[in-house]
């Protein structure tokens, strides 16, 4: 199964965008004075968090569509999107922990944002594990769709955690808690690098999702071929 022309163009664009965003993060954007070089983690840290949330939102939408239409394609999109979302959320949590070490003087603290992000990550890891645990494919898909809808509650909760509760986590968009540590004012090049990273990660997500859906489709066809072979 060779990738089609559009997917090939998208993949090449994603690679090019990643290289450009690295240039913007390391060379174009200036070094932040208070935090030093570690501030550059912020560009990909937030972008990874954004892609995680976007992936889980896509899962919510396609899970509803699957329950409404029973079309297998939506289930393939849902499981693919969750898998990518988990990878990006892992990046987000791990890079945040590394950033926190020199800024907060600790690798981890049970701050509302860190706690809700960890819960969200666990909820979606459980999605992938529980899905594997069910043998009946139809039951597996229906269960995953319902779970994908309910699990989404953890996403806005994570987003709002730094706005609802007192926290030391900086707020990028909107008002900031005075207790936040590591807050900084973005200069125009920093803002440009940040927006470009968000765009780049969104394109990378779309590319990975497309590839992953194709793989899921192939896995489904192989399963059908296997059952036909052994049942004939």
């Amino acid at each position, binding site marked *: *199964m060779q990738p089609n022309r559009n997917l090939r163009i998208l993949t090449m664009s994603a690679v090019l965008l990643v290289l450009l965003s690295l240039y913007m993060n390391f060379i174009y954007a200036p*070094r932040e*004075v*208070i*935090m*030093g*070089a*570690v*501030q*550059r*983690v912020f560009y*990909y*840290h937030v972008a*990874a968090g954004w892609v995680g949330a976007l992936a889980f939102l896509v899962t919510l939408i396609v899970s509803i569509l699957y329950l409404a239409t029973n079309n297998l394609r939506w289930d393939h999109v849902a499981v693919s999107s969750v898998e*990518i979302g988990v*990878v990006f959320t*892992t*990046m987000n949590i*791990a*890079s945040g922990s*590394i*950033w926190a*070490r*020199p800024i907060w003087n600790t690798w981890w603290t049970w701050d509302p944002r860190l706690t809700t992000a960890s819960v969200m990550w666990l909820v979606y890891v459980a999605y992938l594990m529980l899905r594997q645990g069910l043998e009946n494919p139809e039951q597996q898909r229906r269960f995953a769709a319902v779970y994908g809808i309910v699990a989404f509650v953890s996403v806005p909760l994570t987003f709002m955690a730094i706005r609802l509760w007192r926290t030391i986590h900086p707020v990028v968009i909107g008002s900031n808690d005075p207790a936040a540590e590591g807050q900084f004012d973005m200069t125009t090049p920093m803002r440009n690098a940040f927006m470009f990273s968000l765009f780049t990660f969104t394109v*990378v997500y779309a590319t*990975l999702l497309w*590839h*992953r859906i*194709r*793989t899921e489709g*192939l*896995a489904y*066809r*192989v399963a059908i*071929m*296997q059952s*036909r*072979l052994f049942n*004939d």
Partner: protein
Amino acid sequence: MLLQDITPDTSFYMLLAYAVFAILGGGYVISLVARRRNLQRQSETIARMQVEKSE
């Protein structure tokens, strides 16, 4: 110059974080490629077995 005016050297943490991005991102891409190759091989094997069975 006052101590608080000196920008700290936090390059190690920056490199560590970008290494995490590279390992997780690259690792996921490699796993996708490996899974697809396995499935393609499986698909070819099954197709061959079907032909043999029909003969």
